[in-house]
């Protein structure tokens, strides 16, 4: 299974091991299944997500999406962004161990974790929408930008800058950097620090997160802009 959960000392490590870890209708179902599995385990006190190799997640599966009908695209995107929003209000502390590239939806997934550690020497975090000539499309993504990216650095993020671990840390998109060999261990240490001796009630934590990030929770999943996305899909298909 490319997406799977490993339980280590009451910490759920969510492995994203599907090469580029792209979001499509199949993978999104897998991601939700993993999150269900984590939530169903009463002993888990924290969730760490980690990719494999060069990629944390390169975002939406443009190739597959470009071959789908409009309504199916919209439905898939809705599910993809709902998974990300689910992480934002997850009833457990969440830590992203960003081992490599986090692009587009992959970057949104990363920044929706409570605490983020990124590989310092390789891999970029990037919101490529401006570079690709498309809009974010869904109001929920705009809300995530507003709620998760420090005010003074929102401009930089939306200009599609490819941010190294050090830069992402400097601009407040991630909290720490680490060399790749120690990444999971650093995340596990962070988990210990963050969980401490607390025994956080899950329902209450979910309520708390949902109330603070209510603008994301209450966002609509109607698409704002579609014209550019069609053009992008055309470009993707033409490269086949």
């Amino acid at each position, binding site marked *: 299974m490319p997406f799977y959960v490993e339980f280590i000392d009451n910490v759920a490590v969510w492995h994203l091991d599907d090469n580029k870890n792209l979001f499509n209708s199949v993978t999104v179902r897998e991601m939700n299944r993993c999150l269900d599995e984590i939530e169903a385990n009463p002993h888990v006190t924290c969730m760490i997500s980690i990719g494999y190799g060069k990629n944390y997640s390169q975002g939406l599966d443009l190739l597959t999406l470009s071959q789908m009908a409009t309504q199916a695209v919209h439905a898939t995107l809705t599910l993809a962004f709902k998974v990300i929003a689910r992480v934002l209000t997850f009833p457990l502390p969440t830590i992203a161990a960003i081992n490599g590239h986090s692009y587009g939806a992959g970057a949104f997934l990363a920044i929706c974790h409570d605490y983020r550690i990124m590989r310092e020497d390789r891999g970029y975090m990037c919101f490529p929408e*401006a570079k690709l000539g498309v809009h974010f499309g869904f109001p929920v993504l705009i809300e995530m930008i507003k709620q998760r990216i420090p005010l*003074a650095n929102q*401009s930089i993020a939306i200009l599609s800058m490819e941010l190294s671990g050090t830069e992402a840390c400097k601009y407040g998109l991630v909290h720490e950097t680490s060399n790749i060999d120690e990444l999971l261990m650093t995340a596990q240490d962070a988990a210990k620090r963050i969980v401490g001796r607390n025994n956080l009630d899950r329902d209450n934590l979910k309520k708390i997160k949902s109330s603070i990030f209510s603008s994301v929770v209450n966002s609509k999943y109607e698409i704002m802009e579609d014209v*550019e996305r069609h053009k992008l899909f055309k470009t993707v298909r033409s490269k086949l």
Partner: protein
Amino acid sequence: GFIKLYYILQKKLTAKMPFSVEKRGRIAILRMNEGENRLNYYSVKSILKCLDEIESDPEVTAMVSIGQDKHYSLGLDLDWIGENMIENPQLTSQFTMDLSTLYYRLITFPIPTVAAINGHAYGAGTFIALAHDMLIMREERGYFCLPEAKLNLPFRSEMTRVMVRKRIPLSIQSTSLLSYPFPAKEALKYGIIHGHSPMSNLLEMCVSQAERLSGKGEGLNRENLRKIKMSVFDWATLAYTEDR
């Protein structure tokens, strides 16, 4: 011969103008060369015209703005406002609207913008800087300051108030309202600016950041970038509408 002379003359005239645009490859440099770069009806109109010039050039992929010598901009031309407030109320109120327009245009500019804060940025000068995407300041001299409190002045427009709320990091907003003068190192530490550089390298650093933001070839699609900025910075549209 004659055409060359005409061209040279044009260049000389433009160089003498206090607010002008210079191109370095794909990057447009908005030069503010009027001493303290104080803002009055005429200087704001000039800057807006420069923005028109930049926007109408399809080759430009990013913009850097820079002041002169000790000053980026010291803000409002209080002398001019004092002289004209009662005698020319229409002119003064047009100036106020134009200034809001300037902030709004910069915030939603369809190309990336970098402020090379070569010296003091005070009051309206800080808001011009804050309206840019990226702020890089001269390291060794100059302060970034909101002097309204110490001058016993309020923030008159919703546009300026919302820029404090939405462009200055939450944790340092209160301190900035106390007219605290931030030198570059502190402005960077608190996340108000994104980088600093010795004066000798400031423009180069800003141009190279602008190049980086331009990406490859023709740069970011402008219409799309404008739409993105207007979505994420929707607060600017609300404030601008309120000020009208």
